[in-house]
């Protein structure tokens, strides 16, 4: 009898610990949609867009705006724009930033925009606001900036009435030299000539018509990361003839 009683109570103990009510589950079958893209387009305003070569070009510092157009049902939470070592971040569909070309050397880069978007497809994650998608888009970008100069170049008008522009350049630049550009600009017109002779130190513009304008000489280098710079500029007044630029020759 005592053994029976012991067995009874041991069995009761195991029954007590095992007879727990098991709860059910309200599991909803939902399709896990694979999302390829969360945006219709991403546009940049402030860069030169070379449509032929499908590349953005940056020639000088300035304000840039990135505008995202999301697909219906998606809300952009954050965007991160990267260019080389530079990075900008914004909450929402628009990012305004200033690109300072002094902070990034000339060269070819990848401009990227990483988009963090939220959606609600009716899942538990979507309803509590944690259903996120991330999309990254990228484009080639070339930084092709030049350094300006306030230096005035000497010039003279020769016997034929053509302006002769003079410039100086340091001998140390010879090894990396690629070409000079002599840029003539007046109102909305710019005319660029090139010279591949490092030793050239003057230029005669036989097409000058006497209407004034500005000549600016730039030096370019073979290494594209070596930023071109201006050697100076000469400002001509209209109807000048047989005159020399007095500051220096």
């Amino acid at each position, binding site marked *: 009898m005592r053994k029976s009683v012991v067995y009874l109570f041991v069995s009761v103990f195991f*029954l007590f610990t095992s*007879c727990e009510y098991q709860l059910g589950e309200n599991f*909803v079958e939902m399709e896990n949609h694979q999302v390829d893209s969360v945006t219709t387009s991403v546009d940049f305003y402030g860069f030169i867009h070379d449509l032929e070569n499908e590349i953005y070009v940056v020639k000088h510092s300035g304000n840039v705006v990135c505008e995202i157009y999301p697909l219906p049902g998606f809300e952009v939470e954050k965007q991160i724009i990267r260019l080389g070592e530079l990075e900008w971040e914004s909450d929402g569909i628009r990012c305004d930033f200033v690109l300072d070309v002094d902070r990034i050397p000339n060269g070819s880069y990848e401009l990227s925009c990483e988009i963090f978007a939220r959606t609600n497809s009716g*899942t538990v*994650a979507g309803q*509590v606001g944690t259903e996120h998608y991330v999309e990254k888009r990228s484009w080639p970008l070339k930084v092709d900036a030049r350094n300006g100069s306030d230096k005035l170049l000497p010039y003279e008008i020769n016997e034929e009435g053509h302006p002769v522009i003079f410039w100086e350049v340091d001998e140390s630049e010879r090894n990396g030299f690629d070409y000079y550009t002599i840029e003539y600009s007046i109102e909305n017109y710019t005319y660029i000539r090139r010279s591949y002779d490092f030793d050239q130190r003057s230029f005669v513009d036989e097409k000058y018509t006497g209407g004034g304008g500005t000549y600016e000489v730039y030096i370019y280098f073979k290494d594209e990361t070596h930023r071109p710079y201006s050697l100076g500029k000469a400002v001509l007044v209209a109807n000048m003839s047989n005159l020399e630029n007095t500051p220096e020759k």
Partner: protein
Amino acid sequence: MKRILLFICLVLSAVRFGQAQSLTVEYNIGHGSYQMSEMKDRLKDLALPVVNAQTTDKFPGYVTQDTRIGIEWKRNHAGVLFNYMNTAGKKGVADYSGHCNYELHNKGYKLGAFYRFRLTKEELGIFTFEPYVQLSSGVVLTRGKELYSLFIESAPESSNQSKNKYSGTNIFLEPTFGIKFGLCRNIALNLSVGYEWDAVKEDCQLGNPKSPLPVEVDWSGYRAQAGLVFYLNLKK
């Protein structure tokens, strides 16, 4: 608790051991239903951060387990009882991205005394047929657990879980009708049907401990049991 123990001692002393015929040890397993009306309302009214949550469990009836130790003399049978019952409720939703669930787990431990009066005793071959009426009373100690769980598969850091324990004490009365089938001199098969009524219900404190919500845990409902009674004869 002290009052219950005092009551038990009075019963036993009134029985007068000198007249007791048998010491009984009994184990029954059965099924019971539970009112739990305020608990059900709590589930129904609770707002979760998801709109498609459904109540999957509403404190349904479940297995009960009962042990009794008593003294039987003539037509009378009295003693103490210990009973265990449990049920639960749940509201929530789950899908491939995660789940959001609210659960209430209730366990009831009954401690009390019973008195059983045998109506008759009929011989059926080698077996005996003994119908009886019984009244049990005592306390139901509720031990409950409230669990809220939000889990996001892709963002575990956004997941959230909170647990809260609660307790309460009810006083119950349980009239029962049963039949014992004596299988042999020392063992009988017991079948019974009764109704437990929680006459006094104490509020349990659910929700935020800083601003708790009082909710009654009502274990009232029918009880059906079957088990074995073991006799240890005291008189030779």
